[in-house]
């Protein structure tokens, strides 16, 4: 359990979220392999349930990355995604878990820096706060 690699999950929208990740990859940007990218059609698809289950299944930090608000491919999707993340932050606080373990980011397709920065921020949070280890038989 000590010194195990952090486990970070990033829910990434299929549009500008993924475009930003791809541009970063095509610009030689690197990020920690422990970041697992789960593609969704829109960051608004992400349910608080998915984030909480990710924590249950071993994630130490979870982020959601979507298009910039007001430029979401699906109009209000990334605004909804952010609401979901804020909601989960509230739940984590009630459970006595650090709110920083979940975060929302927005990116445009031209930002090569955005995805690696989000990834490295969450890896840093996971390392600093340590493994969450929610336990249970789901792992």
């Amino acid at each position, binding site marked *: 359990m000590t010194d195990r690699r952090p486990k970070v999950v990033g829910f990434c929208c299929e549009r*500008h979220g993924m*475009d930003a990740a791809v*541009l970063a*990859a*095509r*610009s*030689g940007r690197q990020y920690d392999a422990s970041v697992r990218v789960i593609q969704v059609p829109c960051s608004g698809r992400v349910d608080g349930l998915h984030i909480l289950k990710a924590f249950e299944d071993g994630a130490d930090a979870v982020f959601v990355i979507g*298009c*910039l*608000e*007001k*430029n979401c491919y699906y109009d209000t999707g990334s605004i909804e995604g*952010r609401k979901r993340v804020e909601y989960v932050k509230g739940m984590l606080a009630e459970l006595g878990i650090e709110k920083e373990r979940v975060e929302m980011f*927005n990116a*445009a*397709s*031209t*930002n*090569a*820096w*955005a995805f690696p*920065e989000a990834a490295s921020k969450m890896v840093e949070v996971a390392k600093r706060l340590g493994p969450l280890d929610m336990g249970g038989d789901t792992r």
Partner: protein
Amino acid sequence: MTNQVLVVGGGPAGLTVAKTLVDRDIQVVLVERTESLGGMARELTCKGLTECRNCGVCFAMDRAGELLREPGAEVFLLSEVVSAQRTGDGYKVKVKSSPRYVTDDCTGCGKCVEACPVDGKAVFAPTGSGQPRIHWIDRTKCLHFKKGKCDACASACPTKAIDFDDRAKSVTRDVSEIVYATGIRAVDACEVSRLGCGTFADVVSSVDAERILNEKGRLVRPSDGRPPKRVAVLQCVGSRSVKNGVEYCSKFCCKYATKISQMMIDTDPELNLDFYFMDLRTLYEPQDEFKAWAKGKKTVRLLRSMPAAVSQGPDGTLLVRAATETDTEVQETAYDLVILSVGMRPHGAKDALAGQLGIGADSFGFAVADRELEKAGVFVAGAVSEPMDIEEAAVRAVATGSRVSGRRRGTQ
């Protein structure tokens, strides 16, 4: 009538015309002078942190990536249209492409640039977020060509993408219409030497500021790489000025500068930012919106004033000398970063090709194409014809594309 249309220029306008035509089943030959598509938009940054600020940069760059995947579009990079001869009902165009020396096995990793021994480098990444993400070599700087030896980049490349045997190519295409969209160049901030660009490291043009933001996501001082604490943004540098020959208003600079300012405050809410301007010409935004935003930020000041000079201050600061709004005093305020918002000049309207096609240029260098020229199949699109931002260039390009399409249908 052939099914092909030539688009000269791969910036926001050229890309949007090309996509509009391809969507209407018209084949496009797009010729771009530089190594990647996107034009000025490549170096500009998205100006939103969480919320879109409508700069249009992502729109242009999305079109760039998209066009490269369109089977109906043939894209020539590092290329120029050498001649356009009028034929029966169209033009025979000759396109000359310079060798890139890097194949599409390139992954954009940049190890070649690290390995290149030339001062200032001879191999380059695509400009900004330009597409495709393939590097290129400038043979006039490259030791392999100048001295006959040096394989540093080839050895460093993990996918063996360097190809010194690449050759220039020449092709001809028969096209029925030509769309001229050669775009703009930023005014060089150093032209206004009293404002310190070129003298002080921490005086940057807005284009440089955007380039840094696009690459790093943060604006840092060029001198020491630290984030700034007190920033001055100066508008209309080189625009609205008889002296610099850019008498017109470049139209988009207030829009971009206010949004860069907003992004900088988003990133660092403690940043002190002074915005010096003449008239607040925030495009497509009510005139009070930026003022209302600034009022809500304790560290932002709007100063209606055109600074006279930037000089060295104590402790490495920069002093901006300006008359206050009521013009009874001259003040010098210290900053650690100065951003000069530069305007633009049209580019390419006086080129030989433009002349060959009958495209005129007005006294400012903007391209002129009238309805007669369009009847002959020559169209002009984008900011080469008049000042406009990316969104307007895109809208007008759709309109141009529809006229090209209409001409082909004989309903012009």
